[in-house]
């Protein structure tokens, strides 16, 4: 246990020295916070409001309502807060919902009202980007989770048992490598009803091959080491050997490809929604805002900002992944 702690603290020491990787960690952490607190950052409801002499906490109260704890007071139901004449109100920094349509103000340039402009339906771009981070990140995390699950199980099985099992599973790897993955994802996503859970599932189901191959190779390396033989001869059950004895040693290289995989999943998701596939049409995502720039070529803000958001997220995860790779590489230490 102590050794394991030493190992990871050494890795952390190395990681810390890489300024770019640490910067990537900060940016990805910041994006995570933005995604978690999107409702508080960009919302057309005020945090706090005095209306007709009564005190309200609209954001909090609508949360409680959606959780079924306390129903929304009648005064707040179906009201447009922007036109409500409240005595006092404290608003979030961005006073728009991402899907708040304003047909009187379409394709507005960035201004004091709309910091990053509006799209063709008058929806605020910054609010869309903030809430879009939720979709991108959740698809990134969940789909890579699915990929890790499949990849580690298949890779471990192939690597540990070897023989014909390895042969069969390796053939599956080759098959998957020959598949034009993006086109497959596109096809399946287009035949299904647009839904972000399907998109997570599809990206996960097609993205496990790299992780599986890595895991297989690590297991192949480790399975004949003395400590594994010792565990086998002591009568430790096979699943326990796989999970408790070998897996921790194989995890480090897999971790790198997981971090890089999050970036790849974000790229794929944005590419899909850029092509108008995979997420419902009324859902604002980074890719869907970028897509609008194609038909409104004068609206540079629709092209620049969402792409920059995707780029920032991808670079952050790449930097963390690369930093991790260097920190884990024993030859560089």
């Amino acid at each position, binding site marked *: 246990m102590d050794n394991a702690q030493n190992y990871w603290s050494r890795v952390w020491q190395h990681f810390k020295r890489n300024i770019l990787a640490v910067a990537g960690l900060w940016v990805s952490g910041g994006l995570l916070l933005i995604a978690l607190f999107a409702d508080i950052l960009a919302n057309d409801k005020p945090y706090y409001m005095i209306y007709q002499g009564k005190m309200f906490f609209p954001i909090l109260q609508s949360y409680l309502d959606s959780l079924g704890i306390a129903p929304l007071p009648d005064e707040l139901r179906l009201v447009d807060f922007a036109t409500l004449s409240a005595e006092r109100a404290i608003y979030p920094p961005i006073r728009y919902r991402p899907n708040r349509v304003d047909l009187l103000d379409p394709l507005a340039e960035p201004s004091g009202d709309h910091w990053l402009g509006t799209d063709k339906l008058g929806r605020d771009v910054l609010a869309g980007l903030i809430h879009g981070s939720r979709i991108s990140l959740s698809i990134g995390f969940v789909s890579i989770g699915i990929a890790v699950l499949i990849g580690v199980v298949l890779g471990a099985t192939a690597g540990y048992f070897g023989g014909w099992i390895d042969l069969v599973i390796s053939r599956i790897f*080759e*098959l998957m*490598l*020959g*598949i*034009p*993955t*993006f*086109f*497959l994802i*596109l*096809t*399946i996503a*287009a*035949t*299904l*009803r647009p839904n972000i859970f399907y998109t997570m599932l599809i990206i996960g189901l097609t993205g496990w091959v790299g992780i599986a191959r890595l895991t297989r190779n690590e297991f192949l390396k480790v399975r004949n080491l003395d400590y594994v033989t010792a565990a086998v001869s002591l009568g430790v059950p096979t699943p326990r050997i796989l999970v408790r004895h070998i897996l921790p040693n194989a995890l480090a290289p897999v971790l790198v490809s997981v971090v890089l995989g999050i*970036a790849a999943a974000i*790229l794929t998701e*944005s*590419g899909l929604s*850029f*092509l108008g*596939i995979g997420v419902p049409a009324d859902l604002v995502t980074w*890719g869907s805002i*970028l897509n609008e*720039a*194609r038909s409104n*070529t*004068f*609206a*540079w803000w629709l*092209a*620049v900002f969402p*792409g920059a958001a*995707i*780029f920032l997220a*991808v*670079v952050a995860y*790449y930097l963390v992944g690369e930093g991790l790779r260097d920190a884990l590489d024993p030859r560089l230490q």
Partner: protein
Amino acid sequence: MWTYVLQRLLLLIPTLLGITFIAFALIHLAPGDPAELRAGGGLGAAGAEGLSTEKQSAVDEALKAWRAQYGLDKPFHIQYGYWLRNLVTLEFGDSFKDNQPVWHKIRERLPVTVQLNIISTVLIYLGAVPLGIYSATHSYSFGDQVSTFVAFALYALPSYWIGTLAIVFLCGGDYFYLFPPGGLTSVDASPNWPLGKRLLDYSWHLCLPVIVLSYSGFAGLSRFMRSSMLENLRQDFVQTARAKGLAERLVIYKHVLRNSLIPVVTIMTSIIPGLISGSIIIETIFSIPGLGQLGYEAVLARDYPVIMAVFTISSLLTLLSILLSDLLLTVVDPRITFSGRSA
């Protein structure tokens, strides 16, 4: 050597069968009926509600006939059997959209995409290998650090972003008009133009798509080349070569470079599939009439025969490029032979 090539080509058949089976199964198991999509013209169930029972039964009748015409009423494995039988004669069936033979569409579009991909691959290797060599031989110099930084940034830039930016800023919107917004030839182009002019027009149109398609592969490969060179520069045989007084040029180009090229050739197996996927997005952005655009349009219209055909062709291209890179390996590294031990 040739027996090996033949072996590998024969091995392609079961792999391709497996891939097409997976694709066929996934596409057909997914909910959604192409017949209804066709009849409803996008109205779907909501539009059907408004129909009277008479009209509804007429629509049902038509759908049934249409399903029978395309074999969609048969069970899934029989449909796959039909599809395979037709594949042998390069018969991909008729498009659901306009009843044109799919093979005609493919034949029109395939050369465009193959051309785009070959140009991109050649450019990637021509640019990235020298840059990688420079970076490795001048490692940690200013030039190396700049190129590493630029390559990293390029690698992470999504191609659909750069493509959109190019369309917005460079292709005659409100900003600059340096490149055409799409297509392969100018509107007023005619076959009577002299060859030089036609070629110029064509390359003017291909310029942006090729750049956008290849920059990320270029960035990835140059970094890969650099690390491969650095890895070999650390080896003992380099020290030996230097110790026996070989000129540095010979050490680099004869000893280090040759060994470093091995993984660079292998990585082709991931560059070319990347290009094939990339061409879907690039061809859509720049409206280039290639395979990728055909596939995307077919996906939107759920034109199953076209989807399957594009899928099969791009899988085949991917598998062939893997084979090609394996064969190139024997050229780059004579130690690798694929024949049996006795030969």
